[in-house]
């Protein structure tokens, strides 16, 4: 286990450095941020001073080296636009994104597993077919389109829910959260549902497929033959056995929820990291783009590692180490 963790850590570090290089090369090629930052009437001398102040006059490899040295000590550069450390900017916005992703996942899990169970137990009934049709819709509709329709219906037509922002927040351990105030709840409802929809459809399909396979197994037949009530057969015997792939997927999807939040945050003007990324791309704020990606990639790597470990704990048949290293 320890050897596995160490090897994984080495691999992760390699991926991280590789990613930082690719991203740095790529972002380095985007436009010239000085053009956007200095006064259009500025003369050559002033431009040169701005370029030097941002460190953009140095050769590329030197810029990358300075960045790497900084990154190793937790400094990912300063935002060109806000002139504050890029990492601080992202960490400042991260709670909003994580809250949104978390609430979306809770919605997806709370609805997806029960609906998937129903669809799996009664695949040919009207309810089962209806649930599946809904999940196909949830899969094929682009997230931004659904967000638009939600705003059209609930903000414009009905006027029930606000279409942008976080609303009132309440500080929990110094971190502001929305879902504890009524106003915050009203603000988070639409974005969270929007973000949850895709994962909800995925969980419905997974649960349904697992349930359909599980109910045919001998242990379920045996549990029924013992005369156990339906609720216990489903709630314990079936659910426990289909939970392993579901937990894995939930874990793996956590990362992608944060990535997809880019779209949802842009539509609902949710002040999180995704919106920050889009704004930074438009403003050519290179350090923030690079820092965002490194933070997200690190998050992904951590999540994947935790999921792998959890997986081996849930399913004793999975052995980490020798076998896992080959894939």
């Amino acid at each position, binding site marked *: 286990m320890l050897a596995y963790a160490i090897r994984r850590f080495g691999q992760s570090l390699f991926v991280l450095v590789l990613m930082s290089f690719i991203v740095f090369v790529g972002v380095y*090629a985007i436009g010239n941020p000085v053009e956007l930052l200095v006064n259009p009437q500025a003369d050559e001398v002033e431009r040169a001073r701005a370029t030097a102040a941002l460190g953009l006059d140095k050769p590329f490899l030197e810029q990358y080296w300075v960045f790497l040295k900084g990154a190793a000590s937790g400094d990912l550069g300063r935002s060109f636009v806000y002139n504050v450390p890029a990492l601080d900017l992202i960490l400042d916005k991260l709670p909003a994104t994580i809250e949104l992703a978390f609430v979306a996942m809770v919605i997806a899990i709370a609805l997806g597993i029960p609906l998937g169970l129903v669809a799996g137990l009664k695949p040919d009934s009207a309810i089962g077919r209806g649930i599946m049709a809904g999940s196909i819709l949830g899969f094929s509709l682009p997230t*931004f389109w659904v967000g638009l329709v939600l705003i059209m219906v609930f903000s414009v037509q009905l006027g029930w829910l606000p279409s942008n922002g976080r609303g009132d927040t309440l500080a929990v351990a110094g971190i502001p959260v929305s879902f504890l105030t009524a106003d915050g709840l009203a603000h988070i409802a639409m974005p969270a549902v929007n973000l949850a929809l895709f994962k909800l459809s995925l969980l419905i399909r997974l649960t349904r497929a697992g349930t359909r396979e599980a109910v045919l197994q001998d242990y379920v037949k045996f549990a029924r033959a013992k005369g156990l009530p339906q609720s216990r057969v489903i709630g314990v015997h079936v659910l426990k056995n289909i939970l392993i792939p579901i937990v894995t997927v939930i874990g793996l999807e956590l990362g992608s929820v944060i990535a997809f939040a880019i779209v949802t945050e842009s539509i609902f003007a949710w002040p999180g990291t995704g919106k920050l990324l889009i704004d930074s791309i438009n403003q050519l704020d290179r350090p923030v783009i690079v820092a965002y990606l490194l933070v997200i990639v690190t998050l992904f790597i951590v999540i994947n590692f935790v999921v792998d470990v959890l997986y081996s704990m849930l399913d004793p048949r999975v052995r980490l180490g020798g076998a896992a290293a080959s894939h």
Partner: protein
Amino acid sequence: MAPRTESPWARFRAEFAESRLAMAGLALLVVILALGILAPVISPQNPYDLAQLDVMDSRLAPGEKSADGRTYWLGTDDQGRDMLSGIFYGLRISLGVGVASTVFALAIGLVFGLVAAYFGGWVDTIIMRVVDIQLSFPAILIALILLAVLGQGVDKIVIALVTVQWAYYARTVRSSALVERQKEYVEAARVLALGQARIVFRHLLPNCLPPLIVVATVQVAHAIALEATLSFLGLGLPITEPSLGLLISNGFQYLLSGKYWISFYPGVALLLTIMAINLVADQLRDILNPRLRK
């Protein structure tokens, strides 16, 4: 009376027609394709010829008439463009980008997948490692970063879509080629001392195609949705070549003031396109999956 030996194509058509929903999807898809291809011919106006636009006609509601008496059935946008014409032209670009990126991604994925499966060993390891790493990141994130670097343009968005898609094909082709490689006909071809390129492309490839066709159909829908999303975020296509996503994005700012049609109708067109492709793809999957064959 049916002929005793049906051609595979006739059987394929008959099986496809068994699902009425799939036939409806196919019919819808044909109509959408025709609208996209014929856009310059059937559109009431060329929405990107500034001479044909009249600012006086901007933001008219659906059904209102222009100053010179024409009816804008789906309304106009902020530039006074007819939304119906805009949608036809938008379909053309969305479909073009979706199909082009799928074809390129398919070709690249096919070659890498076949090579990985046929040669195995370190070639396989390297290709599949790259595929694994890439697939562990969400497509939207990769496409977003690529476009941030590349800038706007039809060619750039195709490059971004190909980059995020090829890995799916490589993985699909590899897994079916690994199964096919074990079969007798490949061994027979080897015994005949045929060249490796010929075995890979003439023997292995055709037998790996069915699952690939299914993946490709679904991926066209994904590509169109992804392009629309990226254009909506302002990172895909330039305003001079508006896809459906860009039209929707363009109308988004007017949504809150109740001028829903600028965003809504392009959205409906996008939705119908994606649904039609998915219905056809679902039926193709059922037909081409031998395990489900009666």
